[in-house]
């Protein structure tokens, strides 16, 4: 499988790079066949002299995200571990010292590659999964790591959910962009189209064309509490997030109990059951304790600047039952509110008619949300969509709940 564009004597190199690319793919890097050709061209261009140069040359081609650097580093170390392999390849490529007679037969080389390849297969760093079953419904900051299986949704249910989401209108959902679209009832003149139209008639009469600013949906960022006390809603939330991610383009989903996990990519899978299975595999702290402040801190520090741009709406699904209420919680809530356009808190505790904002966590968080959406039953997607639609009612003002008790 020697490549026509590979350098002289580069058959081995081409093979090795292809194998290396395959190892990277297995470790989870999106490496396409095009990248292998690029890597060959790059290695040829760089005329590598040292191991470090070789490393950074391949890095430049294969790594497209900062997070992947670590994976690449490990894969590189394991794959090219046999020092002789790199040095030989370098010697082969060097125009000055053309390698000398090959000491080993091709089979030996292939064997080495096979060995090198076998290691990363077992190696991809898997976080140690501690599985511990403890159905605690109390609020605690103990970290409970737990896997979760969801009952699947029927086709009729899915169709219904999609319809509901399509009808749902989040408050303050539309953002006016600075782009323009042709609009016969627009108020601004579109010079380019006006001119082209006028020219059609020889330029004698000017036929004005109008345009107006384009409108798009605001990005949605969902922060979902999946701790023990919220367990009965997890499935609903995940289906909601999947459906909304399919309907709109920019939806970022995060779940947290004791740690924050970004599941946007997992939810992007077309099939809802597959998406949910992938997401639940990714998340390790189903129905654990709650550490809201900690999760918000993580979000603010690592994600807010990356996902809250362009006027994002934040949907916060949590009951607000934090065991220890510290200043950190108010601080992080405040920061979150100040970095997004609208912060909407949906609290299922409001299903109890006599709900009052008594819990310290709720009282600490309330002043920092734009809207506090009451919901009387959170058993169905319909209720959820209805709660999120429409203009804020009198009940949704956070002040009203603070004053009540």
């Amino acid at each position, binding site marked *: 499988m020697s490549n026509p564009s590979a350098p002289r004597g580069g058959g081995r190199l081409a093979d090795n790079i292809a194998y290396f690319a395959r190892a990277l793919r297995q470790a989870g890097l999106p490496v396409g066949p095009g990248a292998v050709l690029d890597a060959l061209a790059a290695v040829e*261009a760089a005329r590598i002299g040292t191991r470090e140069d070789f490393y950074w040359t391949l890095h430049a081609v294969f790594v497209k995200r900062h997070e992947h650097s670590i994976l690449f580093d490990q894969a590189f170390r394991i794959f090219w571990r046999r020092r002789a392999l790199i040095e030989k390849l370098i010697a082969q490529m060097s125009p000055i010292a053309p390698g000398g007679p090959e000491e080993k037969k091709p089979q030996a080389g292939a064997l080495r590659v096979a060995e090198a390849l076998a290691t990363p297969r077992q190696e991809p760093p898997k976080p140690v999964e501690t599985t511990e079953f403890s159905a605690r419904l109390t609020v605690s900051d103990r970290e409970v790591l737990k896997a979760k299986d969801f009952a699947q949704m029927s086709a009729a249910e899915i169709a219904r959910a999609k319809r509901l989401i399509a009808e749902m209108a989040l408050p303050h959902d539309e953002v006016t962009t*600075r782009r323009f679209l042709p609009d016969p009832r627009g108020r601004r003149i579109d010079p*380019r189209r006006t001119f082209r139209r006028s*020219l059609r008639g020889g330029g004698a009469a000017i036929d004005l064309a109008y345009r107006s600013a384009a409108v798009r949906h605001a990005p949605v960022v969902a922060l979902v509490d999946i701790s023990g006390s919220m367990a009965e809603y997890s499935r609903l939330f995940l289906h909601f997030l999947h459906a909304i991610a399919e309907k709109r383009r920019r939806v970022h989903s995060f779940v947290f109990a004791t740690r924050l996990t970004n599941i946007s990519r997992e939810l992007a899978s077309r099939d809802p059951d597959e998406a949910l299975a992938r997401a639940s595999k990714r998340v390790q702290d189903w129905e654990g304790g709650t550490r809201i402040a900690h999760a918000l801190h993580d979000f603010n*520090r690592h994600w807010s600047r990356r996902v809250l741009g362009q006027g994002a709406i934040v949907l916060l699904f949590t009951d607000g039952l934090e065991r220890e209420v510290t200043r950190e919680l108010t601080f992080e809530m405040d920061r979150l509110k100040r970095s997004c356009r609208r912060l909407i808190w949906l609290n299922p505790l409001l299903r109890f008619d006599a709900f009052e904002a008594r819990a310290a966590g709720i009282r600490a968080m309330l002043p920092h949300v734009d809207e506090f959406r009451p919901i009387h039953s959170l058993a169905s997607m319909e209720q959820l969509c209805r709660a999120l639609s429409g203009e804020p009612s009198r009940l949704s003002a956070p002040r009203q709940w603070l004053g009540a008790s």
Partner: protein
Amino acid sequence: MADRPGSIDETLSLLQGAGYVADRPLATVLFLALKLGRPLFLEGEAGVGKTEIAKVLAAALGRRLIRLQCYEGLDVASAVYEWNYAGQMMAIRLAEASGAVDRDALESDLFSERYLVKRPLLQALESDIAGAPVLLIDELDRTDEAFEAFLLEVLSDFQITIPELGTIKAEHPPIVVITSNRTREIHDALKRRCLYHWVDYPDAEREIAILRSRVPNVPERLSQEIVAFVQAIRKEDLFKAPGVAETLDWASALVELDAVALDPALVSDTLGVLLKYQDDIQKMQGSRAKEMLDRIRESLRTAE
């Protein structure tokens, strides 16, 4: 006009000569971008010198620098080209006044280069006496996806299609540098066409070298203390760690204040140059700064 560097070492010394202290990974990726004619995609925190790389590259190679600053709503009319409508209207009136209106001739005349207003991307495709220009697409994460999609054609084939004129292709492709602060993820399709590099904060040794090269009038002792302090502060749990740009600003500020060494009061007073968030400043002020300063002094003394 300087030639393109022939090796990684030459790239390093080229940057060094222009006053940019690069590390070897950066030099490698830059060399590859030049050699393979691929766009270079630089990502990293604000103030680590991403934009500077393009500027220095243009200066060192003696090429023209064309800068496209991105913002939300950036459209084709302000990034690529626009027709000079007023000029075209005038041409029509003049043709009418002279009496002879040949429609075909008029139309081909109206949509010619004469009435084309060229914006940065189109300018970058033009040939230049000094060689292909350096095209800097700055802070790409600030635009929306629509513009990104448009860039795909420009970056893979170095050509632009203008419906009225046809396709304009660059004779010599420009050297493209794209920067992003990662306020959102850039689409994979665009990244695939580029060589990617994450520009990180420099280590202490390199930061001292940068400081020496950029602010030469800082006393040796002070520059060591400044760099040690900044390096220590980056390890703290801050919302926004200071970048190299802040280090340089701070050094200039301290020189203006005629400082020869850091002291806690001076640090507290000038912390606003280094940190830009009130809670970060609060965290670092007072005893915390003094504590850090003492530790730095200690380690500098033992190093001597």
